[in-house]
């Protein structure tokens, strides 16, 4: 790995300043994606700005307006174990507990996962289905506007994710069909039902990354149950094909996993 300068930012404005000053600088969260990428020579930052010393970025708070706020530097294991998350959004705690393996969960963070925007990452589907809001040092961005494509988000270069605000939704779950070797999702489906709408978001399968399956949403808004989506599948032309699964197989898995996710919500009631 090529050497670089290393800074431990003591404030968010210091981190922004360090990133602004040096075009080759990158933020370092848990490093679980960035370090392997650097080892392969696919990223060669001139400097890393570590966010680890900023305790305000790790807080998990139940806010007065009913929203759940999770700091960008909260690691997956802490989200999975958090009493507040388990009470307010148990489906999200369960999702965090199924990311990667226990060692990666002790290090990898919410902010790093969504900023990286891997097309097979788990969190993006939850954020999109829950209509979460991503807070940065500059603005608030709706999940629908945040995830733009493969490894591409709405973040500007000098923008730091500080937290994510999740509306507390009584009916929410995530279903993951994992690759047995890597544990990444071949298909992951997040389903959220509020009084007004049902939202279904799919990760692992879209040729352009995470997406909402609107046809299923319309059917489920009429009648919320696994059978409502019998016979429909997303168009395989918009799905990804690789050595793990063809686009047609992924289309079928999306229907099956969405139905199972809905069944798990109903079974929990």
């Amino acid at each position, binding site marked *: 790995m090529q050497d670089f300068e290393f800074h*431990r930012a003591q404030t968010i404005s210091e981190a922004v300043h360090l990133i602004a000053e040096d075009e080759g600088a990158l933020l370092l969260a848990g490093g*679980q994606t960035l*370090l392997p990428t650097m080892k392969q020579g696919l990223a060669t930052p001139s400097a890393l700005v570590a966010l680890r010393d900023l305790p305000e970025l790790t807080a998990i708070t139940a806010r007065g307006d009913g929203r759940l706020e999770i700091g960008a530097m909260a690691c997956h294991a802490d989200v999975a174990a958090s009493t507040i998350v388990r009470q307010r959004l148990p489906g999200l705690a369960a999702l965090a507990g199924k990311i990667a393996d226990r*060692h990666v969960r002790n*290090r990898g963070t919410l902010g790093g996962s969504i900023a990286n925007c891997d097309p097979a990452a788990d969190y993006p589907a939850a954020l999109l289905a829950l209509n979460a809001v991503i807070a940065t040092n500059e603005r608030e961005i709706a999940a629908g506007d945040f995830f733009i494509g493969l490894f591409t988000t709405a973040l500007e270069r000098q923008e730091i994710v500080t937290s994510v605000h999740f509306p507390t939704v009584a009916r929410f779950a995530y279903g993951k069909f994992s690759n047995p070797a890597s544990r990444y999702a071949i298909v992951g489906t997040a389903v959220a039902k509020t009084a007004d709408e049902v939202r279904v978001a799919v990760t692992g399968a879209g040729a352009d990354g995470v997406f909402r399956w609107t046809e299923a949403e319309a059917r489920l808004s009429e009648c919320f149950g696994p059978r409502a989506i019998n016979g429909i599948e997303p168009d395989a032309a918009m799905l990804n094909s690789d050595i793990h699964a063809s686009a047609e197989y992924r289309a079928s898995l999306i229907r099956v996993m969405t139905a199972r996710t809905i069944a798990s919500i109903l079974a929990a009631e």
Partner: protein
Amino acid sequence: MIPLSLTVNGKKVSLEVEARTLLVDLIRSHLRLTGTHIGCDTSQCGACVVHLNGRSVKSCSVLAVACDGDEITTIEALAGLNGELHPMQQAFADCHGLQCGYCTPGMVMTAISIAKEREHLDPSELREELHGNLCRCTGYQNIVKAIVAGAEAMKQG
């Protein structure tokens, strides 16, 4: 070079390293604690697992400079002064939980962190928990047996 102070196996260590030094290289090359292994260097195998502030991490995916002020525990800290094995190490020996032994330091460090977190170890849950640790020899059966026995022995104190 970046100055760095941390506690490794209870001892304070101060040294200077390049920013790119991985925690596993600090442990193996700078501190000469070669019990922690490198199996893949790509975050897959778990041979490099150590405890960082009490939590299991893959030391090949952590920068040494990110650990300033932290506490590290490696496999060398487990056995007693006269070489008596930690109950989890003893259980691996008793249950034939290793063959070549390459994965074993990471397996044992992982096993101890799991045992400390949980009252009861269910073998199928345990298999889930071991996803980050690969063994090319044993087929895992005896590792699972060893961890269940080791956790029980740890409770007995």
